[in-house]
């Protein structure tokens, strides 16, 4: 409490110049553009402060010296064309002076041409997907803060809510173009250190760009209300030197190869119930629990329960179960998971749903079943 009161006092009396040093002000960021935006912000702030000081000083002077209790008698004036013209024209001129640098910065910000690297950023409830053009690399990036921290059962880490499983890796000193879009509702991709905030609109593509000066880890968040877990879809960018970036690219490609081989191998594997359930639970908690809830109860009226639901318990509806998870359901929040999860993960999570929370069907789904389902559809 006491400490907060002190902070409060500090907030009120600290001049803006000091506030620059504290994390109370806009970040200067690590790009040329973000510096220019910061300078604009500080300029307009100082202009406002200056106008405020003048206007409020006159006002306060008047409140002190023109009080009736001090014997002040009201003057009679109530018009003055000169004064009125002056205080219309002077603000107008100040605004023009302000508009000039703002226009220049804006035009620079909106010029994504001649990019070295293009990344497609896709928002979906509630994760980001990154695709590196011409590189055959793509992945989802999900919040990695454990649920226990959010629910206050564990101490919160230093990057609470601002950490992900796979950060976006970018090289410094390269012009990077982002193509933003969305699979469902509107999201907004915001990294303060780059001064980039651009909406990801479903069905449309927006452009933005950045050129990072310094290596480091930069964190941001989704900035447009996108449903229940809008507060839980952070962005983490790791900016590295060009050599490191190249190394990372080739490592990614190798992992991707290995994963493909593994997925191929999985198709002929038969897992035990226990293996399926363990993997299924992990997948479920990471990819499904946000909507269907960890206990499978869903949110009535918004997200259906899977516990005791017909689809997840009746044997003759197994096909529908596979179908809804693989292909999603158009026009609802239920996404197609075929691209997000491997066949083995899909098999595991479906098995999990059919056997967890007392569903106890005993049904097992294997990676091969997922593959067959997809093949049948193709016919």
């Amino acid at each position, binding site marked *: 409490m006491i400490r*907060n009161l002190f902070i409060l006092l500090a*907030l009120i009396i600290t001049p803006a110049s000091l506030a620059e040093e504290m*994390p*109370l*002000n806009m*970040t200067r960021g690590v790009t040329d553009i973000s510096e220019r935006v910061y300078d*604009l*912000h500080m300029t*307009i702030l100082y202009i*406002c402060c200056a106008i*405020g000081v003048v*206007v409020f000083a006159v*006002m306060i002077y*008047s*409140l002190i010296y*023109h*009080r*009736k*209790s001090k014997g*002040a008698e009201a*003057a009679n004036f*109530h018009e003055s064309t000169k004064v*009125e013209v002056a*205080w219309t024209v002077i*603000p*107008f001129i100040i605004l023009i002076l*302000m*508009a000039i640098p*703002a226009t220049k*910065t*804006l*035009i620079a*910000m909106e010029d994504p041409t001649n990019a070295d690297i293009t990344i497609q950023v896709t928002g979906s409830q509630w994760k980001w997907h990154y695709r590196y053009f011409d590189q055959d690399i793509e992945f989802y990036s999900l919040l990695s803060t454990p649920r226990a921290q959010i*629910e*206050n059962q564990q101490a919160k880490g*230093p990057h*609470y*809510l601002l950490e992900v499983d796979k950060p976006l890796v970018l090289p410094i000193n390269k012009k990077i173009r982002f193509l933003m879009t969305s699979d*469902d*509702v*509107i999201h907004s991709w915001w990294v*303060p250190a780059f*001064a980039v*905030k*651009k*909406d990801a609109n479903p*069905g*449309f593509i*927006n452009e933005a760009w950045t050129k990072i000066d310094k290596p480091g880890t930069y964190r*941001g*968040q989704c*900035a447009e*209300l996108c449903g*229940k877990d*809008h*507060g839980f879809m952070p962005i983490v960018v790791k900016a590295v030197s060009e050599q490191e970036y190249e190394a990372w690219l080739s490592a990614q490609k190798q992992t991707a190869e290995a994963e493909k081989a593994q997925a191929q191998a999985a198709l002929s594997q038969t897992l035990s119930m226990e293996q399926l359930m363990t993997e299924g639970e992990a997948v479920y908690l990471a990819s499904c629990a946000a909507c269907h809830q960890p206990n499978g109860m869903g949110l*009535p*009226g*918004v997200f259906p329960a899977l516990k005791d639901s017909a689809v997840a318990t009746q044997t003759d509806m197994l096909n529908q179960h596979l179908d809804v998870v693989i292909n999603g359901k158009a026009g*609802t929040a239920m996404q197609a998971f075929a691209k997000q999860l491997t066949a083995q993960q899909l098999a595991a999570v479906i098995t999990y749903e059919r056997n967890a929370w007392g569903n106890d069907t005993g049904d097992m789904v294997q990676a091969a079943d997922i593959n067959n389902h997809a093949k049948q559809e193709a016919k």
Partner: protein
Amino acid sequence: MKTLTPEIDSQPEAHQEHDHHQPPKGIMRWLLTTNHKDIGSLYLWFSLIMFFIGGAMAMVIRAELFQPGLQLVDPNFFNQMTTVHGLIMVFGAVMPAFTGLANWLIPMMIGAPDMALPRMNNWSFWILPFAFLILLGSLFMEGGGPSFGWTFYAPLSTTYSNDSTALFVFSVHIMGISSIMGAINVIVTIVNMRAPGMTWMKLPLFVWTWLITAFLLIAVMPVLAGVVTMVLTDKFFGTSFFDAAGGGDPVMFQHIFWFFGHPEVYIMILPSFGIISAIVPAFSRKKLFGYSSMVYATASIAILSFLVWAHHMFTTGMPVFAELFFMYCTMLIAVPTGVKVFNWVATLWRGSITFETPMLFAIAFIILFTIGGFSGLMLAITPADFQYHDTYFVVAHFHYVLVTGAIFSIMAAAYYWLPKWTGHMYDERLGKLHFWCSVISVNVLFFPMHFLGLAGMPRRIPDYAVQFADINQIVSIGGFAFGLSQLIFLAVVLKCIKGGEKAPAKPWEGAEGLEWTIPSPAPYHSFSTPPEVK
């Protein structure tokens, strides 16, 4: 200029203070009333109740945000709270309060016996409670009420919302119809029922600002009705206005919404300008400085307000030239707004000032609204807006203009005219206590939000990163204190209605206007014979 309502024409002599025209007793008085003072009171009470309900939701929001982590409510309910808090404060607290003030004051200020369309007046009030019962009722539906923000962006409000959206749409429709009827009534009254000699440039500024507000309302409420209807048909009847898959465009939603939404924010502040322009001269004992420039400034703000809507949409990916256009127009609005502030300060200058509660609120309005105006100017600078947009900086900005702007002016108005309404002076000590508690807590509540936003905290989130914890705690403490302080206001009003020192016809030395020429409390029927204005 002397058009009387048909009622009055038919029985011209029956309009002195006679017992036969006193109101019936009991609930029927209020249900059937066509009296502008009764309807004004209904609107004002309704608004106060909504202010407390919306405020209670704000307390839930601030309690959840007191600490990082999820403690009290789940994110889905949190989103319902922010959405319904916003809707109730905008459509339930601020707008009905202004309509209530218009009902009470406009006829008395222009020397008219009542509003021009008294039956429609009754109707426009009595549909409102149903609108809000429907909205609040939807919170108890399976899946809860609206959770897509008061701006209900598609497709979050269409494809991805639950079925309570139908109730939301219906309720907004009713609010819109009520506002349009209220606005028509104000316009017809002002245009036709001014007392002889009450020429346009003699109108009190409250009347002027409301006249302009009423035109804004008639222009944009149908746009709101249109956009909610499109949401309804997109969600339930298979159209795709806002769905790219069917050839629509979700960004078009935002254009239509903000074409309503930006004039809407002026609907919530222009009547405040009128109130402050009445109170500041009264307690400075000096005429308002620059009356005619006030009128022109109000009109130019109203016109410009149709040209700036897309400043809420800089991040949606508009072409640069559009961004520049909307940036320049928005900056331009600062000019007439500045003129107003300068005029008020010039009115204070070399006045003979006293500090009764209405004046305290008016002075706080000028300073704090100006701070809200400054942050507004910062938000207009498009490159900087990319950093501010959808953060707590915006939440701070609009609460400065709405709470310390609109709400403070409504409080000031209530204190200023309470003696006229009730016939009693309010308790000045309690009033001042209310003021000081409010003005301190409101700044503890909203000022640090600027820092939260600049440091990177997005709005509409139920949980936040640990570096925002300390400031959020301060903000929440300010929030609880501000919420509690408003109970003092309730006490003042109740006490003033019950009794208190008798108020003279004109309790304020420097007050001007026809409403102070009739006794306090204002008789049930006033100005049955129009006064002569010289």
